């Protein structure tokens, strides 16, 4: 591991353990944005760790951002750090010379920009939109891709929440955009956004999976039944060993993303597929081992498992990415399958 990465992890974890307690996560579900957590991470240059300095970033690599996002997910941080990364990376992709500060999110939906720069369209599941200052919106203008930036206050917003209790709002837009807030983009903008999104969800799931395993292993060591800790029962050990295998594979799959300089489609597909398919079985083991207390809002295991159930669906679930990989491999053909795998 690079020394810089180690330092980023240490700093991020320190801030998160202070400011992202289970109480803070719960408070978000009651409608309070974790302002202090957001500001502290921002002041430490962690929100945009992997973005260039002219976009307000810390000048690191893309992997640095993913490292911070993964740490945040280990603590179930209820802030749009992934969305800000996606938005800033899109700004970077289109060659923007600046990036709006503050809390930012990204809206993926059907958006059309007319000739006179009127943006119309709608998006569901816009993460944390209600708390954002600005929203980045990939759109089409006469078949070409454009990236638009709008003020949160200028859109019509319907509050919705995810299965994890996090804001996933619906926004509707019908307004004229200032030319300065429109960026001409390569035609693959929407696809690029989807890959960035799937990257973030993959590393987030790997973090939440690891943290869920830690919680449930700790629990099994302390919980006493039949006169001994339940960790001593082979039935429990084998369930947790199975979960550990899935978690280890997920960590390795997500770590591959942190090595990339760009969201390479096939790499993103491998990670979202592998990590996504681990969520269901791991959540099942975690809840089975933890018993009824894990099935409450009083215990914070739910902060992890509910997010896993949410994130595995976002930016394409494992099945969708598996289809993409499969079609690609079939184009590669039987005789070139192994050379392809060995080159990865």
């Amino acid at each position: 591991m690079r020394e810089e990465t180690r330092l980023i992890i240490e700093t991020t974890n320190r801030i998160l353990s202070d400011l992202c307690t289970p109480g803070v996560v719960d408070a978000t579900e009651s409608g309070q944005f974790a302002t202090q957590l957001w500001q502290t991470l921002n002041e430490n240059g962690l929100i945009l760790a992997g973005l260039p300095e002219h976009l307000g970033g810390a000048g690191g690599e893309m992997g640095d951002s993913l490292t911070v996002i993964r740490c945040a997910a280990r603590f179930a941080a209820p802030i749009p750090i992934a969305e800000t990364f996606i938005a800033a990376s899109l700004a970077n992709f289109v060659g923007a010379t600046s990036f709006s500060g503050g809390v930012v999110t990204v809206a993926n939906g059907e958006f059309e920009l007319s000739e006179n720069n009127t943006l119309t369209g709608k998006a569901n599941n816009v993460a944390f939109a209600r708390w954002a200052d600005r929203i980045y919106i990939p759109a089409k203008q006469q078949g070409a891709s454009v990236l638009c930036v709008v003020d949160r206050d200028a859109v019509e917003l319907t509050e919705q929440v995810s299965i994890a209790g996090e804001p996933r709002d619906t926004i509707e837009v019908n307004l004229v955009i200032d030319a300065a807030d429109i960026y001409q983009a390569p035609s693959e903008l929407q696809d690029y956004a989807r890959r960035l999104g799937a990257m973030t969800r993959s590393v987030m799931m790997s973090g939440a999976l690891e943290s869920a395993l830690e919680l449930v292993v700790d629990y099994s060591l302390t919980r006493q039944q039949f006169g001994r800790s339940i960790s001593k029962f082979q039935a429990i050990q084998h369930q947790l060993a199975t979960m550990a295998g899935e978690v280890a594979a997920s960590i390795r799959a997500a770590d591959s993303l942190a090595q990339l300089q760009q969201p390479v489609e096939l790499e993103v597909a491998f990670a979202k597929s592998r990590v996504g398919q681990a969520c269901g079985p791991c959540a099942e083991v975690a809840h089975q081992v933890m018993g009824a207390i894990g099935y409450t809002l009083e215990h914070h295991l739910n902060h992890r498992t509910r997010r896993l159930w949410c994130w595995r669906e976002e930016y394409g679930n494992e099945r969708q990415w598996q289809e993409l990989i499969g079609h690609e491999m079939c184009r590669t053909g039987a005789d070139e399958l192994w050379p392809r795998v060995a080159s990865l």
Partner: protein
Amino acid sequence: MFQGLNFEPVVLPETADALRKEVRAFLDEETGWFPNSDFNTGASAEFSQRLAKRGWVGMTWPKKYGGSERSFLERYVVTEELLAAGAPVAAHWIADRQSGPLLLKFGTEEQRQRFLPPITRGESFFSIGMSEPDTGSDLASIRTSAVKVDGGWLVNGSKIWTSGAHLNHYMVALVRTEPASENRHAGMSQLLIGFDDPNVTVRGIKNLAGESDFNQVFFDDVLVPDDQVIGEPGNGWVQVISELGYERSGPERFLSSFLVIQELLREVGSNPTDEQAALIGKLVAELVTLRRMSISVAGMLEEGKAPNTEAALIKELGNTFERIVPEIVRPVLPQDASAHFLATLNDAILHAPSFTLRGGTREILRGVIARGLGLR
């Protein structure tokens, strides 16, 4: 963060590409065997000798013992290419993977000079002697005994499930050199026993695929000279444990059914249904991840580490993968699947039960992983 759960990404050395090309060119010239990606299926002394001529048996070992002083990562490249091609690697596999490294670590200088060069020439093949008729997963319960006599050890007892005993030259046998005591792991030793000894009897056992691969081996007053004890008498358990990183982490733990995936691609062609594509995608994503985890461990072995929990994780995940492949491809097969494909599939189905048994059962591996998690 748990120990043993993090597989630090490792990049293959620059030499890997050229080496890979050499191996593929070598395999292109090879004929005369039916491909099977299960490492334990297909033993050919001639093939192993041709491979050895290229310097690819014992390739990480010192040159003075006939090795090529290549890295573990380079060895990784060679082994995965051989398996993916379905080459008949069983003859030299154990000596190359396990017995040689064991001798390098615990053997005497005399033993290394005597046993290693013939292995690197593809002339000397080894078997593992651990299981016994009454000893499977509970390895410490072995009863095959070796009693000290003048000039050596007198061995009596029996080993079972010994792959290749009818073809190979030596067994590295784990035996009791002291009666079982309160410390179950004490009093065991590893001996090199020649299959050519007249007091060693090998009885073949057919596996359910109908192949004569494994055996029961009987020892009836077999005199093993002192210079064929590996390491310290009584240190057998520690030595056996030290082999596990090599034994459990390699590509043979997840590639056994690889040819089923490859041939499935041939069956469905370039225009698969979405369901077929999704299944192929799932399998390839798992394969790529397993391979990267396995390369991470090869990197740890190169650094001299003993990644036993990591190796157990790879074997558990990898065996589950290679075992499930023939099962889950069945529902998506085209109606008119070819006879060639069905032969490949049936071969995998018949061998699959062994994947989660050999080299440590699934149950034992889960116990090792649980220990790594601090549960026991």
